[in-house]
Protein backbone atom coordinates (compact mmCIF):
# COMPACT_ATOMS: atom_id res chain seq x y z
CA UNK A 1 0.00 0.00 0.00
CA UNK A 2 1.36 3.43 -0.89
CA UNK A 3 1.88 6.03 1.80
CA UNK A 4 -1.02 7.98 0.40
CA UNK A 5 -3.39 5.05 0.45
CA UNK A 6 -2.25 4.11 3.94
CA UNK A 7 -2.84 7.64 5.10
CA UNK A 8 -6.27 7.70 3.54
CA UNK A 9 -7.18 4.53 5.41
CA UNK A 10 -5.78 5.86 8.67
CA UNK A 11 -7.58 9.15 8.24
CA UNK A 12 -10.84 7.38 7.49
CA UNK A 13 -10.43 5.21 10.56
CA UNK A 14 -9.75 8.24 12.69
CA UNK A 15 -12.82 10.03 11.39
CA UNK A 16 -15.25 7.14 11.32
CA UNK A 17 -14.17 4.59 13.87
CA UNK A 18 -13.00 6.84 16.67
CA UNK A 19 -15.30 9.79 16.41
CA UNK A 20 -14.74 11.39 19.78
CA UNK A 21 -11.06 11.81 19.04
CA UNK A 22 -11.39 12.51 15.35
CA UNK A 23 -10.76 16.21 15.49
CA UNK A 24 -7.29 15.96 16.89
CA UNK A 25 -6.09 12.61 15.56
CA UNK A 26 -6.21 13.65 11.94
CA UNK A 27 -3.73 16.42 12.54
CA UNK A 28 -1.33 13.99 14.12
CA UNK A 29 -1.75 11.51 11.31
CA UNK A 30 -1.12 14.20 8.72
CA UNK A 31 1.96 15.20 10.65
CA UNK A 32 3.26 11.63 10.49
CA UNK A 33 2.44 11.47 6.80
CA UNK A 34 4.37 14.62 6.22
CA UNK A 35 7.50 12.96 7.52
CA UNK A 36 6.83 9.70 5.70
CA UNK A 37 6.37 11.38 2.35
CA UNK A 38 9.77 13.05 2.53
CA UNK A 39 8.74 16.24 0.95
CA UNK A 40 11.45 18.22 2.68
CA UNK A 41 13.19 18.75 -0.65
CA UNK A 42 10.85 21.51 -1.70
CA UNK A 43 10.15 22.86 1.75
CA UNK A 44 11.95 26.14 1.16
CA UNK A 45 9.81 26.92 -1.87
CA UNK A 46 6.65 25.46 -0.42
CA UNK A 47 6.57 27.48 2.74
CA UNK A 48 6.80 30.86 1.10
CA UNK A 49 3.70 33.00 1.19
CA UNK A 50 1.14 32.66 -1.54
CA UNK A 51 0.53 35.75 -3.66
CA UNK A 52 -2.99 37.16 -3.42
CA UNK A 53 -3.55 36.07 -7.02
CA UNK A 54 -2.57 32.47 -6.25
CA UNK A 55 -4.74 32.48 -3.18
CA UNK A 56 -7.72 33.71 -5.22
CA UNK A 57 -7.24 31.10 -7.99
CA UNK A 58 -6.94 28.28 -5.47
CA UNK A 59 -10.02 29.57 -3.66
CA UNK A 60 -12.01 29.68 -6.91
CA UNK A 61 -11.12 26.06 -7.61
CA UNK A 62 -12.17 25.11 -4.11
CA UNK A 63 -15.43 27.03 -4.48
CA UNK A 64 -16.17 25.42 -7.88
CA UNK A 65 -15.50 21.97 -6.43
CA UNK A 66 -17.64 22.75 -3.40
CA UNK A 67 -20.52 23.99 -5.56
CA UNK A 68 -20.32 20.76 -7.51
CA UNK A 69 -21.44 19.06 -4.31
CA UNK A 70 -23.87 21.61 -2.85
CA UNK A 71 -26.30 23.92 -4.64
CA UNK A 72 -26.68 27.65 -4.06
CA UNK A 73 -29.92 28.73 -2.42
CA UNK A 74 -32.30 30.11 -5.08
CA UNK A 75 -33.35 33.25 -3.13
CA UNK A 76 -31.34 35.98 -4.87
CA UNK A 77 -32.61 38.66 -2.50
CA UNK A 78 -31.16 36.72 0.42
CA UNK A 79 -27.88 36.21 -1.49
CA UNK A 80 -27.62 39.96 -2.08
CA UNK A 81 -28.42 40.72 1.55
CA UNK A 82 -25.72 38.38 2.85
CA UNK A 83 -23.22 39.98 0.44
CA UNK A 84 -24.04 43.46 1.72
CA UNK A 85 -23.50 42.42 5.33
CA UNK A 86 -20.34 40.49 4.45
CA UNK A 87 -18.82 43.15 2.22
CA UNK A 88 -19.39 45.80 4.89
CA UNK A 89 -17.70 43.62 7.53
CA UNK A 90 -14.76 42.84 5.22
CA UNK A 91 -14.26 46.55 4.55
CA UNK A 92 -13.34 46.93 8.23
CA UNK A 93 -10.28 44.70 7.80
CA UNK A 94 -6.82 45.07 6.32
CA UNK A 95 -7.79 42.87 3.35
CA UNK A 96 -10.71 44.97 2.15
CA UNK A 97 -9.45 44.80 -1.45
CA UNK A 98 -9.99 41.02 -1.90
CA UNK A 99 -12.87 40.03 -4.23
CA UNK A 100 -15.14 39.22 -1.27
CA UNK A 101 -17.92 36.86 -2.26
CA UNK A 102 -20.63 35.57 0.05
CA UNK A 103 -23.25 32.95 -0.60
CA UNK A 104 -25.99 30.87 1.00
CA UNK A 105 -26.01 27.18 0.12
CA UNK A 106 -29.25 25.26 -0.15
CA UNK A 107 -28.63 22.87 2.69
CA UNK A 108 -30.30 22.42 6.05
CA UNK A 109 -27.16 21.47 7.95
CA UNK A 110 -25.75 24.13 10.27
CA UNK A 111 -22.49 25.29 8.80
CA UNK A 112 -20.31 28.00 7.32
CA UNK A 113 -17.17 27.77 5.21
CA UNK A 114 -14.29 30.08 4.32
CA UNK A 115 -12.19 29.63 1.21
CA UNK A 116 -8.85 31.25 0.42
CA UNK A 117 -9.13 34.54 -1.43
CA UNK A 118 -12.35 35.77 0.16
CA UNK A 119 -15.23 33.40 -0.57
CA UNK A 120 -17.51 32.63 2.37
CA UNK A 121 -20.51 30.29 2.23
CA UNK A 122 -23.15 29.77 4.91
CA UNK A 123 -25.79 27.08 4.92
CA UNK A 124 -29.45 27.97 4.80
CA UNK A 125 -29.93 25.75 7.84
CA UNK A 126 -27.72 28.13 9.81
CA UNK A 127 -29.28 31.32 8.44
CA UNK A 128 -32.80 30.22 9.36
CA UNK A 129 -31.74 29.54 12.96
CA UNK A 130 -30.28 33.02 13.43
CA UNK A 131 -32.21 35.73 15.23
CA UNK A 132 -30.91 38.99 13.85
CA UNK A 133 -28.32 40.67 11.60
CA UNK A 134 -25.69 40.92 14.36
CA UNK A 135 -25.76 37.11 14.66
CA UNK A 136 -25.27 36.75 10.90
CA UNK A 137 -22.46 39.31 11.17
CA UNK A 138 -20.83 37.22 13.92
CA UNK A 139 -20.86 34.11 11.72
CA UNK A 140 -19.57 35.94 8.62
CA UNK A 141 -16.91 37.81 10.61
CA UNK A 142 -15.62 34.49 12.02
CA UNK A 143 -15.25 33.16 8.47
CA UNK A 144 -13.74 36.43 7.21
CA UNK A 145 -11.13 36.08 9.98
CA UNK A 146 -10.15 32.63 8.65
CA UNK A 147 -9.50 34.28 5.26
CA UNK A 148 -7.57 37.21 6.79
CA UNK A 149 -5.31 34.90 8.75
CA UNK A 150 -4.92 32.49 5.78
CA UNK A 151 -5.85 29.61 8.05
CA UNK A 152 -6.94 27.30 5.24
CA UNK A 153 -3.65 27.91 3.40
CA UNK A 154 -1.66 27.17 6.54
CA UNK A 155 -3.60 23.94 6.98
CA UNK A 156 -2.91 22.96 3.37
CA UNK A 157 0.79 23.72 3.74
CA UNK A 158 1.16 21.87 7.01
CA UNK A 159 -0.63 18.85 5.52
CA UNK A 160 1.79 18.52 2.63
CA UNK A 161 1.88 14.73 3.00
CA UNK A 162 -1.78 14.60 2.02
CA UNK A 163 -1.92 14.10 -1.75
CA UNK A 164 -4.08 17.00 -2.87
CA UNK A 165 -2.34 19.46 -0.55
CA UNK A 166 1.10 18.37 -1.73
CA UNK A 167 -0.06 19.10 -5.25
CA UNK A 168 -0.98 22.69 -4.36
CA UNK A 169 2.37 23.16 -2.69
CA UNK A 170 4.15 21.76 -5.75
CA UNK A 171 2.30 24.07 -8.15
CA UNK A 172 3.11 27.13 -6.09
CA UNK A 173 6.76 26.07 -5.89
CA UNK A 174 6.96 25.43 -9.64
CA UNK A 175 5.37 28.76 -10.33
CA UNK A 176 8.12 30.53 -8.47
CA UNK A 177 10.78 28.56 -10.31
CA UNK A 178 9.19 29.26 -13.70
CA UNK A 179 8.83 32.93 -12.87
CA UNK A 180 12.56 33.13 -12.32
CA UNK A 181 13.23 31.28 -15.58
CA UNK A 182 10.70 33.40 -17.44
CA UNK A 183 8.63 30.43 -18.63
CA UNK A 184 4.92 31.13 -18.60
CA UNK A 185 2.76 28.43 -17.05
CA UNK A 186 -0.94 28.58 -16.45
CA UNK A 187 -0.70 28.69 -12.69
CA UNK A 188 -4.22 29.96 -12.21
CA UNK A 189 -5.73 26.99 -14.02
CA UNK A 190 -3.46 24.50 -12.25
CA UNK A 191 -4.29 25.95 -8.86
CA UNK A 192 -8.00 26.02 -9.58
CA UNK A 193 -7.86 22.38 -10.56
CA UNK A 194 -5.82 21.54 -7.45
CA UNK A 195 -8.52 23.32 -5.44
CA UNK A 196 -11.14 20.98 -6.86
CA UNK A 197 -9.01 18.00 -5.81
CA UNK A 198 -8.74 19.42 -2.31
CA UNK A 199 -12.52 19.43 -1.98
CA UNK A 200 -12.75 15.84 -3.29
CA UNK A 201 -10.08 14.80 -0.85
CA UNK A 202 -12.09 16.10 2.07
CA UNK A 203 -10.73 19.58 2.75
CA UNK A 204 -13.99 20.55 4.46
CA UNK A 205 -14.11 17.42 6.55
CA UNK A 206 -10.76 18.21 8.14
CA UNK A 207 -10.74 20.31 11.26
CA UNK A 208 -8.60 23.40 11.52
CA UNK A 209 -6.36 23.68 14.53
CA UNK A 210 -8.49 24.69 17.53
CA UNK A 211 -6.24 27.71 18.08
CA UNK A 212 -7.30 28.89 14.61
CA UNK A 213 -10.97 28.55 15.57
CA UNK A 214 -10.42 30.53 18.75
CA UNK A 215 -8.50 33.20 16.85
CA UNK A 216 -11.30 33.45 14.27
CA UNK A 217 -13.83 33.85 17.10
CA UNK A 218 -11.78 36.61 18.72
CA UNK A 219 -11.22 38.46 15.43
CA UNK A 220 -14.85 37.87 14.50
CA UNK A 221 -15.89 39.78 17.61
CA UNK A 222 -13.50 42.63 16.81
CA UNK A 223 -14.58 42.87 13.15
CA UNK A 224 -18.30 42.89 14.10
CA UNK A 225 -17.66 45.64 16.66
CA UNK A 226 -15.69 47.69 14.11
CA UNK A 227 -18.55 47.38 11.63
CA UNK A 228 -20.89 48.86 14.24
CA UNK A 229 -22.75 45.67 15.26
CA UNK A 230 -23.31 44.35 18.75
CA UNK A 231 -20.38 41.90 18.72
CA UNK A 232 -22.28 39.62 21.11
CA UNK A 233 -23.99 38.25 17.98
CA UNK A 234 -21.29 35.58 17.88
CA UNK A 235 -21.85 34.80 21.58
CA UNK A 236 -25.55 34.34 20.84
CA UNK A 237 -24.81 32.01 17.92
CA UNK A 238 -22.45 29.94 20.06
CA UNK A 239 -25.08 29.63 22.77
CA UNK A 240 -27.53 28.45 20.09
CA UNK A 241 -25.01 25.84 18.94
CA UNK A 242 -24.43 24.76 22.55
CA UNK A 243 -28.16 24.01 22.86
CA UNK A 244 -28.61 22.03 19.66
CA UNK A 245 -30.89 19.08 20.11
CA UNK A 246 -30.28 15.54 18.89
CA UNK A 247 -32.79 16.01 16.11
CA UNK A 248 -30.67 18.87 14.78
CA UNK A 249 -28.38 16.26 13.33
CA UNK A 250 -27.51 18.65 10.55
CA UNK A 251 -25.18 20.27 13.03
CA UNK A 252 -22.90 17.30 13.01
CA UNK A 253 -20.41 18.51 10.46
CA UNK A 254 -19.96 21.87 12.14
CA UNK A 255 -19.50 20.37 15.54
CA UNK A 256 -17.17 17.65 14.43
CA UNK A 257 -14.81 20.18 12.87
CA UNK A 258 -14.87 22.78 15.66
CA UNK A 259 -14.05 22.83 19.36
CA UNK A 260 -17.26 22.60 21.39
CA UNK A 261 -19.41 25.72 21.55
CA UNK A 262 -19.02 25.80 25.35
CA UNK A 263 -15.26 25.79 25.04
CA UNK A 264 -15.44 28.60 22.48
CA UNK A 265 -17.67 30.68 24.76
CA UNK A 266 -15.25 30.24 27.66
CA UNK A 267 -12.37 31.32 25.45
CA UNK A 268 -14.23 34.43 24.25
CA UNK A 269 -14.98 35.45 27.82
CA UNK A 270 -11.31 35.10 28.64
CA UNK A 271 -10.01 37.07 25.64
CA UNK A 272 -12.55 39.73 24.59
CA UNK A 273 -15.08 40.28 27.36
CA UNK A 274 -14.07 43.96 27.54
CA UNK A 275 -14.92 44.61 23.88
CA UNK A 276 -18.11 42.57 24.15
CA UNK A 277 -19.25 44.71 27.05
CA UNK A 278 -18.08 48.02 25.63
CA UNK A 279 -19.80 47.61 22.24
CA UNK A 280 -22.77 45.58 23.48
CA UNK A 281 -25.21 48.44 22.93
CA UNK A 282 -24.48 48.66 19.17
CA UNK A 283 -27.36 47.65 16.83
CA UNK A 284 -28.51 44.06 16.31
CA UNK A 285 -30.98 44.86 13.50
CA UNK A 286 -33.73 42.32 14.14
CA UNK A 287 -36.28 43.73 11.72
CA UNK A 288 -33.96 44.08 8.74
CA UNK A 289 -32.78 40.50 9.21
CA UNK A 290 -36.33 39.18 9.46
CA UNK A 291 -37.26 41.04 6.30
CA UNK A 292 -34.40 39.51 4.33
CA UNK A 293 -34.50 35.98 5.74
CA UNK A 294 -38.19 35.46 6.52
CA UNK A 295 -39.49 34.36 3.13
CA UNK A 296 -37.10 31.51 3.08
CA UNK A 297 -37.76 30.10 6.54
Amino acid at each position, binding site marked *: MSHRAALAVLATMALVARPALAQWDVGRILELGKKAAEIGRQAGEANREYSAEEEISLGEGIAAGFLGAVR*LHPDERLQRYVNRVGRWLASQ*TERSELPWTFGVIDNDAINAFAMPGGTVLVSHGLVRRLGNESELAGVLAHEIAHVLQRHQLAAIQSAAGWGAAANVTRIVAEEQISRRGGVAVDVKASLASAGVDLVRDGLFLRPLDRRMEHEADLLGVIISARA*GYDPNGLVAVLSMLAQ*LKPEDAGASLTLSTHPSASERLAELEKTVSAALERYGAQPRLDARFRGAASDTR
Partner: protein
Amino acid sequence: MTPQRVILGLVVLLAAARVAAQEATTNRPTELRERPAAQSSPLATLPARTPVKLLGREGGWSQVDAREQRGWLPTFHLRFAAVLETSSPSSALSVTSMLGMGSRQSPETSKVATLGVRGLTRDQFQSASPDTAALRQLQSYRVPLAEAEAFAQEGGLMAVPVPVPGRGKS
Protein backbone atom coordinates in the same frame (compact mmCIF):
# COMPACT_ATOMS: atom_id res chain seq x y z
CA MET B 1 -48.48 -2.23 21.09
CA THR B 2 -50.78 -0.40 18.70
CA PRO B 3 -49.33 1.97 16.10
CA GLN B 4 -50.89 4.88 18.01
CA ARG B 5 -49.09 3.83 21.14
CA VAL B 6 -45.80 3.57 19.28
CA ILE B 7 -46.28 7.07 17.91
CA LEU B 8 -47.25 8.39 21.31
CA GLY B 9 -44.14 6.76 22.76
CA LEU B 10 -41.99 8.44 20.14
CA VAL B 11 -43.57 11.80 20.81
CA VAL B 12 -42.98 11.44 24.54
CA LEU B 13 -39.35 10.46 23.98
CA LEU B 14 -38.78 13.36 21.62
CA ALA B 15 -40.47 15.74 24.01
CA ALA B 16 -38.22 14.51 26.79
CA ALA B 17 -35.19 15.08 24.61
CA ARG B 18 -36.40 18.59 23.87
CA VAL B 19 -36.82 19.49 27.52
CA ALA B 20 -33.45 18.03 28.40
CA ALA B 21 -31.94 20.02 25.57
CA GLN B 22 -33.01 23.30 27.11
CA GLU B 23 -31.34 22.73 30.42
CA ALA B 24 -28.36 24.64 31.63
CA THR B 25 -26.90 25.54 34.99
CA THR B 26 -25.26 28.67 36.30
CA ASN B 27 -21.48 28.33 36.35
CA ARG B 28 -20.99 30.98 39.09
CA PRO B 29 -23.15 32.99 41.48
CA THR B 30 -25.04 35.53 39.36
CA GLU B 31 -27.91 38.01 39.36
CA LEU B 32 -31.12 37.20 37.57
CA ARG B 33 -32.21 40.50 35.98
CA GLU B 34 -35.46 41.89 34.75
CA ARG B 35 -34.11 42.91 31.33
CA PRO B 36 -31.05 41.93 29.24
CA ALA B 37 -28.85 44.76 30.56
CA ALA B 38 -26.33 45.08 33.38
CA GLN B 39 -28.14 48.21 34.66
CA SER B 40 -31.48 46.40 34.87
CA SER B 41 -32.82 45.64 38.36
CA PRO B 42 -31.83 42.30 39.87
CA LEU B 43 -34.72 39.95 40.60
CA ALA B 44 -32.71 37.37 42.52
CA THR B 45 -29.22 36.18 43.22
CA LEU B 46 -28.66 32.66 41.95
CA PRO B 47 -25.91 30.53 43.46
CA ALA B 48 -23.57 28.55 41.22
CA ARG B 49 -25.07 25.35 39.76
CA THR B 50 -28.65 26.59 39.78
CA PRO B 51 -30.56 24.68 37.10
CA VAL B 52 -32.27 26.98 34.61
CA LYS B 53 -34.58 26.54 31.66
CA LEU B 54 -33.44 28.40 28.55
CA LEU B 55 -36.10 30.48 26.80
CA GLY B 56 -34.33 32.87 24.46
CA ARG B 57 -31.24 34.91 23.62
CA GLU B 58 -30.52 38.57 23.03
CA GLY B 59 -26.91 39.54 22.28
CA GLY B 60 -24.81 38.34 25.21
CA TRP B 61 -27.86 37.62 27.39
CA SER B 62 -29.97 34.52 27.87
CA GLN B 63 -33.57 34.55 29.04
CA VAL B 64 -34.24 31.82 31.60
CA ASP B 65 -36.72 30.43 34.07
CA ALA B 66 -34.95 29.80 37.36
CA ARG B 67 -36.45 29.14 40.80
CA GLU B 68 -39.89 29.97 39.47
CA GLN B 69 -38.80 33.36 38.23
CA ARG B 70 -38.26 34.56 34.69
CA GLY B 71 -35.35 36.85 33.90
CA TRP B 72 -32.06 37.41 32.09
CA LEU B 73 -28.49 36.24 32.78
CA PRO B 74 -25.21 36.89 30.96
CA THR B 75 -24.71 33.91 28.62
CA PHE B 76 -21.15 33.57 29.93
CA HIS B 77 -22.59 32.72 33.36
CA LEU B 78 -24.23 29.57 32.01
CA ARG B 79 -22.97 26.08 31.55
CA PHE B 80 -24.84 24.33 28.77
CA ALA B 81 -25.74 20.69 29.04
CA ALA B 82 -24.32 19.21 25.87
CA VAL B 83 -27.03 17.22 24.22
CA LEU B 84 -25.43 16.08 21.02
CA GLU B 85 -23.74 12.77 21.27
CA THR B 86 -24.06 9.33 19.87
CA SER B 87 -24.11 6.18 21.91
CA SER B 88 -21.49 4.33 19.91
CA PRO B 89 -19.48 4.86 16.76
CA SER B 90 -21.21 2.02 14.94
CA SER B 91 -24.62 3.60 15.41
CA ALA B 92 -23.39 7.01 14.37
CA LEU B 93 -25.42 7.05 11.22
CA SER B 94 -28.45 5.16 12.47
CA VAL B 95 -31.87 6.67 12.75
CA THR B 96 -31.90 5.84 16.42
CA SER B 97 -29.02 8.09 17.24
CA MET B 98 -30.32 10.78 14.90
CA LEU B 99 -33.46 11.04 16.97
CA GLY B 100 -31.51 10.98 20.20
CA MET B 101 -33.10 7.78 21.41
CA GLY B 102 -31.04 4.96 22.73
CA SER B 103 -28.24 7.40 23.36
CA ARG B 104 -27.35 8.51 26.81
CA GLN B 105 -27.32 12.21 27.38
CA SER B 106 -24.48 13.35 29.54
CA PRO B 107 -23.40 16.93 30.08
CA GLU B 108 -19.80 15.75 30.06
CA THR B 109 -19.83 14.68 26.43
CA SER B 110 -19.87 17.52 23.98
CA LYS B 111 -18.49 16.11 20.75
CA VAL B 112 -20.75 14.78 18.08
CA ALA B 113 -19.50 11.80 16.20
CA THR B 114 -21.42 11.77 12.99
CA LEU B 115 -20.26 13.27 9.76
CA GLY B 116 -23.11 14.81 7.88
CA VAL B 117 -26.10 12.72 8.87
CA ARG B 118 -28.35 14.84 6.75
CA GLY B 119 -26.01 17.60 5.75
CA LEU B 120 -22.89 17.33 3.74
CA THR B 121 -21.38 13.92 3.41
CA ARG B 122 -18.00 12.60 2.52
CA ASP B 123 -19.46 10.91 -0.60
CA GLN B 124 -21.04 14.13 -1.76
CA PHE B 125 -17.64 15.82 -1.81
CA GLN B 126 -15.75 12.87 -3.25
CA SER B 127 -17.96 12.58 -6.28
CA ALA B 128 -18.25 16.31 -6.96
CA SER B 129 -17.26 17.65 -10.33
CA PRO B 130 -16.49 21.38 -10.40
CA ASP B 131 -19.47 23.58 -11.20
CA THR B 132 -18.09 26.71 -12.84
CA ALA B 133 -21.55 27.96 -13.82
CA ALA B 134 -22.55 27.95 -10.14
CA LEU B 135 -19.29 29.72 -9.29
CA ARG B 136 -20.11 32.48 -11.80
CA GLN B 137 -23.62 32.69 -10.36
CA LEU B 138 -22.15 33.05 -6.86
CA GLN B 139 -19.74 35.75 -8.02
CA SER B 140 -22.59 37.67 -9.63
CA TYR B 141 -23.95 38.27 -6.11
CA ARG B 142 -20.90 40.33 -5.11
CA VAL B 143 -21.71 43.90 -4.19
CA PRO B 144 -19.50 46.97 -4.66
CA LEU B 145 -18.11 48.56 -1.52
CA ALA B 146 -20.19 51.71 -2.04
CA GLU B 147 -23.38 49.63 -1.96
CA ALA B 148 -22.27 47.94 1.26
CA GLU B 149 -21.49 51.32 2.82
CA ALA B 150 -24.91 52.70 1.91
CA PHE B 151 -26.50 49.54 3.35
CA ALA B 152 -24.58 50.00 6.61
CA GLN B 153 -25.66 53.62 6.85
CA GLU B 154 -29.33 52.68 6.29
CA GLY B 155 -29.08 50.30 9.24
CA GLY B 156 -27.47 52.91 11.48
CA LEU B 157 -24.18 51.01 11.56
CA MET B 158 -21.19 53.24 12.22
CA ALA B 159 -17.61 52.09 11.78
CA VAL B 160 -15.62 52.35 15.01
CA PRO B 161 -11.89 51.78 15.50
CA VAL B 162 -11.54 48.70 17.69
CA PRO B 163 -8.04 47.33 18.29
CA VAL B 164 -7.36 43.60 18.52
CA PRO B 165 -6.47 42.83 22.15
CA GLY B 166 -2.72 42.40 22.44
CA ARG B 167 -2.05 43.74 18.93
CA GLY B 168 -2.38 46.88 16.86
CA LYS B 169 -4.86 46.81 13.98
CA SER B 170 -5.36 43.17 12.98
